C-alpha cells in the first residue's frame, strides 16, 4: 500500500485509468513541479506497470530513444533505447518535457500513438509492434512560450490531455505536510507563500514557486533549518536570478513567517 503519495485534485485518476483501458496515449499539461511526474509514478504503481521516465532535452534525438549500435571490441552491438525496451515489455514510457527533444523524435511518436502502434527502427530495419500494455505518456509545459518549441497540432491531437495546475492552499498544505511531516502550521504558511509568489508568474519566472520547491523547503525545516533560511535556500534562490524578484519573494516569506 506504500506507493508514491499523490493527492488527487480533480478527476485526473479516472481519466487516466480510462485512457489506459482504451490504450490511448496521454498528454500531461502543466507547470513544472506541480506533480505530473509524481502522478505518473503513482498511476504506474496503482496499475502495477513498469515505468520508464525520460527527461527530454535539446540534444535528445530519436536514436537516444530507440537505440544505437555501440562499439564492442571488433564489432558493433545493437543496444535498445529506453523507449524500445518499454515498447517490447509493455511498460509505461513517460517522456518528460517532450517539446525540448529534437524534431526527429516526433516521427517515432506519431507511429506509436495512432492505431498502428508500431515503432520503426530504421537502423535494424525492424517494425516493432507495441506490447499490448505499452502506454506512452508525454508531458508538456505550455508556459515556455517559444514559437520554435511548441507542440505541433498534429502531435498534440494524438493524445488525451489532462491538465494540471498548482493546488489550492489547503490541498497544497496537506501535500507538503504528508510528504515531509512538517508541522501543519508551517505547511500552511509555506503553501501561502507559494500561492502568493505564483501571482508573480508573469513577471520573469513563468512557472512560479512549484509544489516541489515547497516540499524541499519543508524538508529543510524538518531537518532543523530555520524556516526563513529554508525558504531562502529552497524558494527565493530557486525562482529567479533577478534581484528584484528575489527580493519580492523574500519579502513574502518574511511577512508570512513569524
Amino acid at each position: 500500500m506504500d506507493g508514491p503519495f499523490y493527492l488527487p485534485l480533480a478527476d485526473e485518476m479516472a481519466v487516466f485509468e480510462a485512457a489506459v483501458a482504451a490504450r490511448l496515449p496521454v498528454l500531461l499539461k502543466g507547470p513544472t513541479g506541480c506533480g505530473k511526474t509524481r502522478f505518473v509514478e503513482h498511476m504506474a504503481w496503482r496499475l502495477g506497470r513498469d515505468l520508464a521516465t525520460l527527461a527530454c532535452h535539446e540534444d535528445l534525438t530519436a536514436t537516444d530513444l530507440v537505440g544505437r549500435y555501440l562499439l564492442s571490441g571488433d564489432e558493433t552491438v545493437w543496444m535498445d533505447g529506453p523507449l524500445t525496451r518499454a515498447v517490447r515489455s509493455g511498460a509505461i514510457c513517460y517522456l518528460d518535457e517532450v517539446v525540448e527533444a529534437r524534431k526527429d523524435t516526433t516521427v517515432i511518436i506519431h507511429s506509436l500513438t495512432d492505431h498502428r502502434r508500431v515503432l520503426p527502427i530504421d537502423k535494424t530495419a525492424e517494425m516493432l509492434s507495441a506490447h499490448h500494455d505499452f502506454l506512452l505518456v508525454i508531458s508538456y509545459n505550455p508556459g515556455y512560450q517559444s514559437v520554435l518549441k511548441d507542440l505541433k497540432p498534429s502531435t498534440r491531437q494524438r493524445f488525451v490531455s489532462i491538465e494540471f495546475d498548482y493546488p489550492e492552499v489547503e490541498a497544497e498544505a496537506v501535500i507538503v505536510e504528508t510528504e515531509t511531516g512538517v508541522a501543519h502550521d508551517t505547511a500552511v504558511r509555506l503553501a501561502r507563500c507559494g500561492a502568493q509568489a505564483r501571482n508573480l508568474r508573469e513577471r520573469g519566472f513563468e512557472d512560479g514557486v512549484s509544489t516541489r520547491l515547497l516540499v524541499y523547503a519543508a524538508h529543510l525545516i524538518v531537518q532543523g533549518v530555520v524556516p526563513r533560511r529554508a525558504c531562502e535556500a529552497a524558494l527565493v534562490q530557486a525562482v529567479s536570478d533577478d534581484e528584484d524578484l528575489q527580493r519580492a519573494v523574500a519579502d513574502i516569506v518574511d511577512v508570512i513567517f513569524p
Partner: protein
Amino acid sequence: MISLSEVHASLSLFAESFTGQPVAITTVEDTRGCWPWTEAPAAQPVSLPAHMESRASYRIVLLHQLLRQVGAVSDLLASPAGQVLDLVESHRVMAEIRRDYPGATEDLRRVAQAAAAGVPAHEGPGGLAESAAAIMALLRWHSLSQGSAGQTDGKRATAVAVFDQVLRADATGRTSVQVASELMALLYGDDSLAFAALIDADPDEYGESVPTESSTGVSLDGGTPSEVVDSDGLAGGQLSNDLSEHDYASQQADESESLPPGIDLPKASGLRSLPARSRTYVYDEWDYHRRQHRPAWCRVIEEQLSGNDHDFLNGVRARYPQLRAQIRRSMLRLPAQQLVRVHRSLDGDELDLDAAIEAVTDRRAGAPVDDRLQIRRDRASRDVATAFLVDLSASTSSPAVPPEPEVFENTADPMDDPMSHGPVWDAPPVTDPVRRVIDVAKDAVALMADALHELGDLYAVYGFSGTGRDAVEFKVGKDFDDRTSTTSWASIGAMKPLRYTRMGPAVRHATAKLAMVAASTKLLIVVSDGYPQDVDYGHDRNDRDYGMHDTARALLDATNAGIEPFCVTIDPAGHDYLRVMCPDGRYLVIDDVESLPEELARLYLGTLGD
C-alpha cells in the same frame, strides 16, 4: 534614509503578489502623506513617500495599504465619515497583519509607535473631553499603540468597544463599514448620511448574504463594499461605488485620453489617476546642468495596448509587397542561418574521418575507444532580440506627405456643352484617408516584425509618450514573451499619437526589458519624429539640451548594458541633435517619411549583416 527608486521595483512585485495584478504606486512628497502618519484617506490606491528610513518601513506601509478593502474617495477625504471609516479599516488591517503576517508585526509596532508619538498629548488618552474630535484622537492613539486605551469610561469606553469589533478574526472590509457607521452614530449622532446606502443595501442583490453579529443587525456578505454601494443611490453622494481601487482606476482611465494632444497639463501632481492594469516603474533622470542623476525622477506607466484592427498586418503586407519580399530574401541570407557541423557526434549524416582514424588506432593500441564517430548538421539558432520603440508624440499625427495645393484644371464651362442639361460639378475626388507619420512608422515596424517573426527572432514593439515626469506612458504593442497573433498585430496597429516625447525614461525602460531577455545580440531601435521634449523636461521648458542629454545618457547606459541602440528620426533637421544623442553610425535621419520602411530594413540588415 532610502529613496523609493531603490526599492520600487521589488516592492511593486511584492504588491503584485497580493493582488495578482499590477499595482500602480504613487509617490507622495513625505511620510506625512500616508498611513500611519495621517489617517486622511489617500486618493490613490497605493501611495508611498519618496523617502523613508528603511526598506522595512516601506514594506509595512505598503502591506497595510494592500490589505485594505475599503478606501474612501476624494469627496470624502475631509469629511468625518471618511475619517471614521478610514480609521476603522486601518484598525482592522493592523489586526489582520498581527494575526496573519507575524513577520511584519515588529515593523508594524515600530512605525505605529513612531506615528503614535506624533499624536499631541492633549488628544491622547489623558484628556477628559468627550467631543467627537477628542474621541477620534483617542481611537487613533488606541489603534496605533495597539490596544492600550488606558482608563476610559462612558462614551469613550463605548466607542473603544465598538471600535475593537474589527479585531475579530472574521472581520472584513464590510465589518469596517458597519463599525464606522456605529461610530458615526455614537460620535456625531449621525449614521444616516454617510452610510445609509451601505447599510440599507439589499443584500440579496449582491449574492449570498452572510449574517454578521453586528449590533445593527444588518446582513452584508463578505465581499468588498464596492459590490454593495450604488453611486446613484447615495445620500449626499458621499460614498460612491469606486471604493474598490481597481474600479476607481478604470473609471478614471479615459479622463486623460479625451484631452487634445499637445495641451499643457498641470505639472505632475502625484494625484493623477492610472489606467487599470498598468504597471509603474521609477527611473532616475540625468541632469546635465548638475552633472548628476535626479533620483527617482520619472515614473513610467506601462500599459498593454489592445486594438480591434485585426486586418492591420494584411494591410501592411498589401501596401509594401515588394519591400516585404526584399526583406525576406535578405533576412534569409543573414549569416546565422547557416548549418553548423558538429564533429564527433554519436549520430549524424556522415562519418567523422578524423574520429574514425583515431578510434581505429586507439583500438589497435588497446586504449579505450571513443565511439562518437559521426558529423551532425545542426541548424544554428539565431540569437537576436530586437525592441522597437516608437515615438507616439502628438506631432506624429501630422500628414506623412505634405498636401499639395489643389489645382483646378477643369475650366470648361458646362454651359458650353450643347448636350449638357446644366452645370454638373465634379464630385469631390475620393481621397484615401491622410497617411500620418505614425501610420508610416507603424507600417515600417510591422514589416520588420513580420519578417523577424518568420525568422523565429525575439522581438518587441513598444510606443512611448507622456505628459510630465510623473506620467511617462509606455505602451506595449507586443512584448518579448507575447505570442505573435492577430491580437498582437492589432495591438501594434492600435498605436496612436498621444502627447509629448520624453525619450530618456522610455529608453531606460526598454533597456530594462531587453536586459531581461536572454539573447547574445540585443538591438534597441528608436523611431522618433523630433526633439525629445516634455512639459517639465529640464528646468526650462524651452531647454532642448536637457532632454537630449538625458536621452544620450540613457542610450549610453543601454550600450553599456550590452544593447546596441539605433535612432531613426523622421526630421529634416535631425542631424544636429542626433549627433549629440547617438554615437556615429548609430543614427539615421530620414527627410522623406514614406521611405522609412525601406530605410529601417536597410539599417537592420546592415547591422546584422556585418
